[in-house]
């Protein structure tokens, strides 16, 4: 069983140039996602498995997948801890 990530349905968000601003209604904080976090957010416009996200980021940044895997997972966990992203078991 693998993990699938997606944006939380209730999140409000906007593009801000290369960045993204996002908030969970009722939480109060507006989060600024920039750099790779904004790219991950863009990739999550459709639900994606962790492996797929890692390979997509590796292609975009032209780096070996194993080199960036930990960073992508950390980013996803950070977004999940802010409840902007949800993880499901596929």
């Amino acid at each position, binding site marked *: 069983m693998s993990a699938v990530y997606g944006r939380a349905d209730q999140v409000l968000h906007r*593009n801000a*140039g290369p960045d993204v*601003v996002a908030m969970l*209604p009722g939480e109060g904080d507006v989060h600024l996602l920039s750099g790779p976090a904004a790219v991950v957010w863009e990739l999550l416009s459709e639900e994606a498995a962790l492996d797929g996200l890692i390979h997509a980021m590796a292609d975009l940044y032209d780096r070996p997948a194993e080199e960036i895997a930990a960073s992508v997972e950390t980013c996803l966990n950070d977004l999940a801890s802010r409840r902007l992203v949800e993880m499901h078991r596929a």
Partner: protein
Amino acid sequence: MPDGRPVGFREAARIVAGFGLPAGPDPEPMVVAENEWQTFVARVWGEKLTGLAIAASHGGVLPLSDERAETLLERHRRAMAWCLRVEERLLTLDDRFSDAGIEYAVLKGPTIAHTAYPDPSLRGFGDLDVLVRGRDFKAACSTLRQMGFGRIVPEPRRGFDERFGKAATHRHDGDSMEIDLHRTLVLGPFGLWIKPEVLLDRAVPFGLGDRQIPRLDDTGMLLNVAMHASLGWPPGLAPLRDVLQVSSAMAVDWAVLRSWAEAWRLSAVLHHAFATAESVLGAKATVDSRIFSDSRHRRSESRALRTYLGERHAVGGTALSTLRAIPGLRDKAAYMEALAFPQQEFMRGRYSKRSYGRRLLTPARWGLQRLLDRRHPQQQVRFTPRGD
């Protein structure tokens, strides 16, 4: 500094406002003069155009140095963060109005951003506009009060809102966010002639987060933005952009719009909105909009329209044309009485000192201004975009 045609802040803002329109011009790259850059940034911020400015920059029309790009981007981030807070408040409003059984539709702002523009970040907004039925107006005011929004200026007299009013602005005690609670779309005769309940009957939902929020249907939305662009004061660039954006991107029922225009005396207003948008933004409106230029506008429409524009606006033109539009002597008398002798709460909200004398002198001031305008016509206010 990147290369481009040197332009002043006004022209740059105007070109930004028209950027990306389907039948728009293909402007050459432009560079805002150094001494006008900060004014330009303030202008696009004030006009809610930071998203289009960023898009124009990415599209090569507004090439920017790194420093300028960061300045603009920082403003845009702040603008978008505020939009999210407004939308969060809209979700709360939806909960409260639903609980109170208040039927409503969101106007302009978030609805246009999410439905008419290819990306909502292209259309900023600073407040909420909400249309309710006249019978729900008081309950809606009360619900907003419970949400922490206080009405800025009370109604002149009890019952004025439901009979003659356009909207009441409410401001939040904490963050100063504003919600305009509308009973009709505009102040004055056109606001009295239209039937807002017809627009509410046709409301449709739009998606916001995981929720569905009521808005005017596409035809109602175009009517709303056109009236705002044509009759709003001072006129702005974003409303003019909205007219061309909504008319080209949304599924407008032009036959219905024409029937409304005829029934509600809006042909001149719609013609004026399209003509002004084309003239200011340099883009062509959809051919469907030509039905209004072909219309023979009624004299009452044209006369009422003139009172919203230019010199007559500042000297009581709208109030006088409203008086003409109110049917029946009894209602006319009630309108005049409410404006001449408003309740004390209205006076306290409107003026720093409660002075009926000052209030009663207003018609005399209008008359004097009209006299001066006749003698010095070059000083009259003309219909030009905001700040020009």
